[in-house]
């Protein structure tokens, strides 16, 4: 069989596309294998139950795990109600006017602002201007600023996916708008909203730059007990270990990353289950 030059170019192109895609998947495998190889031997029960230490063999991530749980819980409490309420307004109440499209533009822009800028905003506004200092609350509020636009965008998508026929049927039965929203739209879109909420909170867990800026400490040998206590989180602790020159600390950082990725993986699995098992409407 004879192949013309045009068909040959096309074939080469097809092979190139497939090769690059395979290569990207290969990179993902290398990344995961490398981290497992580096961190595996440092993983132990002591690693999870010890506080950080100067001595690599005694160092652990207890305070980092508690800090992460504090930040995650507070961020969720602050950002989810705000985000979901904003999304409901934008999808159900907002008039189709010019200023609303500016609001949409503003939100998608906020989602693209570098996280470090939010960190500086948190430092200037929460830590210094409102005098909240280097506390868990400052950290959580800063991270909330960061995830709020993402929650609004994903919740809007979920609400938009509910077909209008459902709303119209409820209106035809004489329901008021709030009854339509609380009785029909929200129950129908909850799986989609939850998926978005979990995914955006998994971003909250992985963020470290804004927390470093607002003053998360790298050496915390206690568990935060109230919202005004200093704190550290897993990514901050990982950053601290990774930026030291000694091999041992790189191993510890690897072990920290395994724990962090395992948490993120679990959250993503849960989000996927919500999306596939409970979601009636395609996002």
């Amino acid at each position, binding site marked *: 069989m004879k192949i013309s030059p045009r068909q040959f170019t096309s074939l080469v*192109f097809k092979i190139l596309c497939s090769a690059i895609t395979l290569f990207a998947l290969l990179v*993902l495998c290398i990344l995961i294998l490398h981290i497992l190889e580096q961190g595996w031997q440092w993983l132990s029960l002591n690693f999870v139950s010890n506080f950080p230490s100067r001595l690599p063999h005694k160092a652990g991530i207890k305070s980092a795990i508690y800090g992460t749980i504090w930040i995650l819980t507070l961020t969720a409490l602050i950002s989810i109600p705000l985000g979901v309420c904003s999304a409901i307004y934008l999808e159900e109440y907002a008039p189709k006017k010019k200023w609303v499209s500016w609001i949409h533009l503003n939100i998608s822009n906020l989602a693209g602002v570098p996280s470090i800028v939010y960190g500086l905003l948190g430092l200037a506004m929460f830590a210094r201007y409102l005098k909240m200092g280097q506390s868990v609350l400052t950290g959580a509020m800063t991270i909330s600023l960061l995830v709020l636009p993402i929650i609004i965008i994903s919740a809007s998508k979920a609400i938009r996916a509910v077909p209008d026929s459902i709303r119209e049927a409820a209106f035809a039965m004489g329901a008021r708008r709030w009854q339509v929203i609380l009785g029909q739209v929200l129950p129908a879109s909850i799986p989609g909203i939850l998926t978005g909420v979990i995914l955006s909170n998994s971003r909250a867990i992985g963020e470290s730059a804004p927390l470093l800026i607002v003053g998360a400490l790298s050496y915390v040998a206690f568990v935060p007990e109230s919202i005004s206590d200093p704190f550290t989180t897993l990514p901050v602790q990982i950053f601290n270990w990774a930026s030291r020159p000694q091999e041992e600390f790189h191993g510890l950082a690897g072990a920290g990353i395994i724990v962090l990725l395992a948490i993120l993986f679990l959250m993503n699995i849960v989000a996927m289950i919500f999306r596939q098992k409970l979601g009636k409407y395609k996002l």
Partner: protein
Amino acid sequence: MRDKAKLIDHLLKHFLFLNMSITVMITIAVVFFLGKESYGFFAEIPLVDFLFGKNWAPLLEPKSFGVLPLVCGTFIILIWSMLLAVPCGILVATFLNEFANNKVHAIIKPTLEILAGIPTVVYGYFALTWVTPFLKNLFPDLQMFNGISAAIVVAIMILPMVSSLCDDAFRSIPENLRSGAYALGATPFEVISRIVIPAAGSRVMAAIALAMSRAIGETMAVTLAAGATPKFGLDPTGSIQTMTAYIVQVSLGDVPADGIEYKTCFAVASLLFLITFTLNIFGSNVSPLKLKSKA
């Protein structure tokens, strides 16, 4: 009873509106606080010295506040990561769109998106402990901290974003455009390069703008892997410092609240914000400017 329902409707509407208006307040707060602290900085350092100075040494005596070395560092990361991520992203999107069947598409796309969900500090670690030693085998002159390793991991990080957005863009091209070209005997390569990519051009450009904004704002990977040496030049093999990495460096030390070092962060962040904001507007799908042209 009816009045009560009406009242609830009214109250709920205003309550929700109040929630939504917080997003506007955040934007105002960003502009206000960045502006306020930068104003303090520019009261001491002339704007021209900041924007066009070629020496950045705010933490050492004699102090110097020319931001160009930091801009160069960011530019090195931007250029190299874009050179890698944009062609690869478009090729992956083409694979997903033209060559993969639905089953393969449904597996590969979410798998690639795992790459986008990995925290950036992990990429920094990967660059430092795998990419740099690997590249050192090939190029022994490479320094321990260098721009190119950081740029490579930034490229890996933004690849799923580019491929995902381009895939959506390609998908939005009407099928009859493709079918028409195939009916005339065009090969898949010709259909993609002459029909699909030109037709999806504006959305591909928007995807590139968003990816650029991500690469410029990327912080932890470049802080860990690219070093902390502000340099005026475009050599990616040595230690450099980006705008974002500088801000982290300052926050790791104890900086007095009123000192000039504290204010430099805000001046640098303002510049960062202006650049990424412009790129985001350009890359935005919901731009009112675009809505107008559609109507």
